[in-house]
């Protein structure tokens, strides 16, 4: 069993003269829950975009389970087990949750190109989708068009869509962004309930949530990794306190 789920080596990305990723070295052992924190503009979302292939890097390598995926397209990485969610809802407004997750399951099963069979005859795919929805407590609202779902449920649907691809590694970009504090716990409970085989890296601003759910914290500042370590180490690091924890958090 490979113990490294995802790793980056010397990852570099520039937007013109602005360096948004500078020699990023990250190693995610299988099954961990890591948090990625840092002030706005530190390059956290850019890093997820690089890892998932939505942005091409200017240098460096991305290894998924020991395989170099640096030049693979986003969908090819998804099929190898690297899924993500989006900070700003990136859902299918006109589809309901059942249709959306069933679509994602069909894509994973490679049957989404089938045009001669009825969707309703794909029992296994539909059941699998419905199970994911129930696990995230979306079962009772899965026939409502996505655009009509309450915002918190849309955030859960973000995660449901990612789970439908049966990820080995799941990158969550501020899964509770915009959700009232009292509801954000529900979303992180759902993350905590995920199978231990799934490796999770999540971006989050709320330090209480980070300290509660992460076993390891990576701090980014100005496109580079500033510090990383256990929550205790990060909390005790005076440099981190100075640049990040000392200031007020922003949403």
């Amino acid at each position, binding site marked *: 069993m490979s113990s490294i789920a995802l790793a980056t080596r010397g990852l570099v990305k520039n937007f013109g003269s602005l360096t948004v990723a500078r020699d990023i070295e990250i190693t995610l052992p299988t099954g961990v829950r890591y948090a990625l924190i840092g002030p706005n503009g530190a390059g956290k979302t850019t890093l997820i975009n690089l890892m998932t292939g939505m942005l091409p890097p200017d240098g460096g390598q991305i290894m998924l389970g020991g395989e170099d995926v640096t030049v693979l397209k986003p969908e090819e990485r998804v099929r190898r087990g690297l899924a993500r969610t*989006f900070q700003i809802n990136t859902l299918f407004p006109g589809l309901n949750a059942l249709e959306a997750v069933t*679509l994602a399951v069909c894509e994973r099963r490679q049957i*989404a190109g089938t*045009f001669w069979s009825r*969707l*309703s005859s794909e029992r296994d795919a539909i059941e699998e*989708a419905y199970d994911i929805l129930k696990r995230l407590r979306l079962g009772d609202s899965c026939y409502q068009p996505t655009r009509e779902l309450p915002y918190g449920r849309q955030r859960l649907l973000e995660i449901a869509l990612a789970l439908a*691809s049966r990820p080995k590694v799941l990158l969550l970009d501020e899964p509770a962004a915009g959700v009232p504090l009292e509801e954000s716990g529900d979303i992180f409970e759902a993350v905590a309930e995920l199978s231990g085989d799934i490796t999770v890296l999540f971006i989050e601003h709320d330090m209480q949530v980070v300290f509660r759910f992460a076993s390891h914290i990576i701090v980014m500042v100005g496109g580079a990794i500033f510090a990383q370590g256990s929550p205790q180490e990060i909390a005790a690091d005076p440099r981190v306190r100075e640049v990040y924890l000392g200031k007020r958090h922003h949403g």
Partner: protein
Amino acid sequence: MSIATPTQNPQSYLAAQERWRPVEIVFWLAALLPFVLFPDYLTLASQIAITGLFALSLDLILGYAGIVSLGHAAFFGIGAYTAGVLTKYGWGEPITGLLISAAVAALAGYLSSLVIARFRHLALIMITLGLGLLLHEIANSAHWLTGGSDGLQGMQVWPLLGMFKFDLYGYTAYTYSLIVLLIVFVMARRLIHSPFGLALRGIRENWTRMPAIGANRQAHIRKIYTIAAAMAGVAGALLAQTVGTVSLEAISFGRSADVLVMLVLGGAGRLYGGIVGAMIFMIARDQFSGIAPQYWYFWIGLLLIAVVMLLPNGVLGGLSALINRWRSRS
């Protein structure tokens, strides 16, 4: 019967979406009415069925997958010329002619999809427009094959199934067009309710998310573009065979624009949107051109603006909103 409302089973929910509705049966039975009520208008009815089929093919790419095209007449024209040239040079059998035309149009659709699947928005509109203009000029200059601006003359279409001649009143033409429309419609309906149909709606609803759920957008687009081109080719071939000639108009920009207008009028992204749009458009043209033949686009322009402003989802979208409101009130 349990007191609590049982949660609907997801599979039966999806099966219910796919079921034929009574209003659909009524619609297809009503399509037989012209034989009895308007026997003088069978030629028009046949052209409506053909144009409706053409609009349905555009609906698959534009209405369902959200891919704009301003050059869809290219495939209609390729189908029409293929069918026409076949009958002119010795093979007048209509049904095999239809299938060969579909295959040729599908090949053209596949080749252009290799380019089209890479672009979106304005670039896509320009590429499809350019492709349409290009093919129009090729048809225009290949006078030896297509007859150019004089139209393709000398077509010999054999009787349908060896029995039914294409008569002057359009009786055979409408029967033939309506049956082909129904067959292709049933296939399109099946496609829309398949996993692939769901993937097309996914592309329309969120282009960015599709790769993030593991979808190969370009492969999906190449596939639907090829299928839609084949359908448009069938429509073009039907027109050639029922009219007995092919004019340059079959492959013109005007036809690409008209079919877009029809789809928007009827309601894009709805299975019946293209057919209903074609009915409105063609009947309006028939009526208005009786009043003032050269100015009839004035009325179409007015109709288009009114529909887009008042009924953003087309006539069918407006109707279904009305029915929903009425249902929730009662």
